[in-house]
């Protein structure tokens, strides 16, 4: 929707450089194993756009989102937000940047404190950052509630008194109260009833227009990602395998994994479904503890060649601003 001409080139708001996030698991007599959740990711997000980050469970997309907003420290690599390296700054300076980047979580049941009233939940960031308190905070909270489609008179109610969709609106209000310009939304609609999902998708689009927000929209559902995003990044087992505009990724996927994903999504049209046949993958997603050599997709790729297990293909420009990490991009 808001892509600037030329896609990725114009001033990125956020830049991720070679970010790695490893987790140590199961320390025992044989030492410990390492989960390679995010393994060398480069990504740029432009001011005002929505970048969709799509991939299947365990591919590292949520971890990447958390590392970007510094909820978890990166093992190595850099995250630049308006040219400030977030992996280098600490304390007050980090706090100041943090006001401008917020997160919306998947589960509107688990991400709100059940013992706080909605007014306090939404006002907490204002108090934490010393921006407003008392009447001023209350006024700001009611304003944000109205913007998010919540009745401001419900300021003293508890989360359990709200439905799932309304709770997600509370989560969005909390993210919005500090007037951020960048929001990471991690599966914001996947826990909601189908009849409610459109309400939240539309609300996020309206808020983006109104407040010039930049989104990183993380989801496993390609239909929603296609709908929301200006550009899409596809992740497989800790690596970005393809980045392009939504139209490029939808109509001309270059990486075989993207092609498989696109072919797997059913379309709510029985006439089209008669002819759609998914490309089925062999085997199962390998463990991120011991990822395959070179191209991580080679164990399941329908067009893998010997080189794919020997030389790792870099994420490189194929055509226009369309990036893919594949020796045989566009061949499937």
């Amino acid at each position: 929707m808001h892509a600037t001409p030329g896609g990725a080139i114009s001033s990125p708001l956020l830049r991720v450089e070679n970010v790695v996030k490893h987790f140590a698991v199961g320390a025992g007599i044989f030492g410990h194993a390492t989960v390679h959740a995010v393994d060398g990711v480069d990504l740029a997000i432009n001011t005002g756009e929505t970048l969709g980050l799509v991939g299947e469970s365990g591919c590292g997309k949520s971890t990447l989102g958390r590392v970007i907003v510094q909820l978890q420290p990166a093992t190595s690599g850099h995250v630049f937000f308006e040219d400030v390296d977030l992996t280098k700054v600490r304390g007050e300076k980090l706090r100041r940047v943090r006001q401008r980047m917020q997160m919306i979580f998947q589960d509107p049941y688990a991400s709100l404190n059940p013992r706080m009233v909605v007014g306090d939940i939404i006002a907490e960031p204002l108090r934490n950052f010393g921006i407003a308190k008392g009447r001023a905070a209350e006024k700001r909270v009611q304003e944000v509630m109205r913007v998010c489609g919540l009745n401001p008179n419900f300021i003293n109610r508890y989360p359990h008194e709200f439905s799932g969709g309304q709770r997600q609106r509370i989560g969005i209000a909390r993210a919005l109260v500090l007037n951020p310009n960048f929001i990471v939304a991690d599966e914001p609609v996947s826990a909601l009833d189908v009849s409610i999902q459109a309400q939240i998708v539309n609300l996020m689009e309206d808020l983006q227009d109104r407040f010039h927000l930049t989104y990183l929209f993380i989801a496993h559902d390609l239909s929603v990602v296609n709908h929301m995003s200006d550009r899409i990044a596809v992740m497989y087992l800790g690596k970005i395998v393809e980045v392009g505009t939504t139209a490029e990724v939808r109509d001309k996927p270059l990486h075989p994994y993207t092609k498989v994903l696109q072919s797997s999504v059913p379309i709510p049209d029985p006439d089209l479904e008669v002819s759609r046949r998914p490309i089925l993958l062999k085997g199962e997603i390998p463990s991120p503890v011991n990822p395959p050599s070179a191209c991580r997709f080679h164990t399941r790729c329908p067009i893998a060649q010997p080189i794919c297990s020997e030389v790792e293909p870099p994420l490189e420009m194929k055509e226009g601003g369309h990036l893919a990490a594949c020796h045989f991009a566009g061949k499937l």
Partner: protein
Amino acid sequence: MTALSLLRLIPEPGKITNGKILFGDRDVVHMSDDEIREFRGSDVAMIFQDPMTSLNPVLRVGFQIEEAMAAHRRFTRKQAHDRVVPMMQRVRIPAAAQRVRDYPHQFSGGMRQRVMIAMGLSNEPSLLIADEPTTALDVTVQASIIELLRDLNREMGAAVILITHNLAVVASLCQRVIVMYAGRVVEEGPTRSIFKNPQHPYTWSLLRSIPRADERQHEKLLSISGLPPDLSNPPPGCKFHPRCRFRIDKCLTQEPNLDDVGAGQSARCWVLMKNVPAGDMGAQ
């Protein structure tokens, strides 16, 4: 709940207060305990959304499939034992002969769902009820389970009731659709008519509220206002009227019947979408 009723699996204190469930010409509601036990799993099998919690974690996968057959005594223990590996092959579990001795935790989510389907089909039921069978799975795994259900439906000739909130999966797999809202059937008919020509405003709205993976132009999704009703205190009249943009006065007080609207389709609505002028459809 409807599917649980079909198998008389309604948890206490719920019960079937009225009506009949005919399977062939037998009434499930009035079956004795022995009859219902034989009916479940033997004539009708059910698979659930969550393949993680539906299998016993301390028993081998092969044993659990065998047990499903042994419980219904349609096959001898020996026959049941010999059928396990072929059943696993039938649901396309690779290396079935080795994996028969694995425990559930050694299987991925998609493979566990295949085990559940193998258990369900092991007694050759004539009806398989699949309750959100792909909801907990990744898209690529979902695709393979949909293909499997389609193939098995053809190969084994068992009828399948697919329960899902995912309209795209319905479009992919089903010949007929029943749309339910607040405990009632609000529309039913052939899949193609329901998708091309929905007559109930709920069906119509739902189809316009979901994004499509093949969407080329950005169009705003239609958002259905309000919430699904509280079933302990449902609204009077048509249960959908508080959220319906096409309601008329009658909808507030009188509940419509499920009436034939032509082409094998029926809808429970006083208005019907075919009577709404095209110009009014976009209006909020």
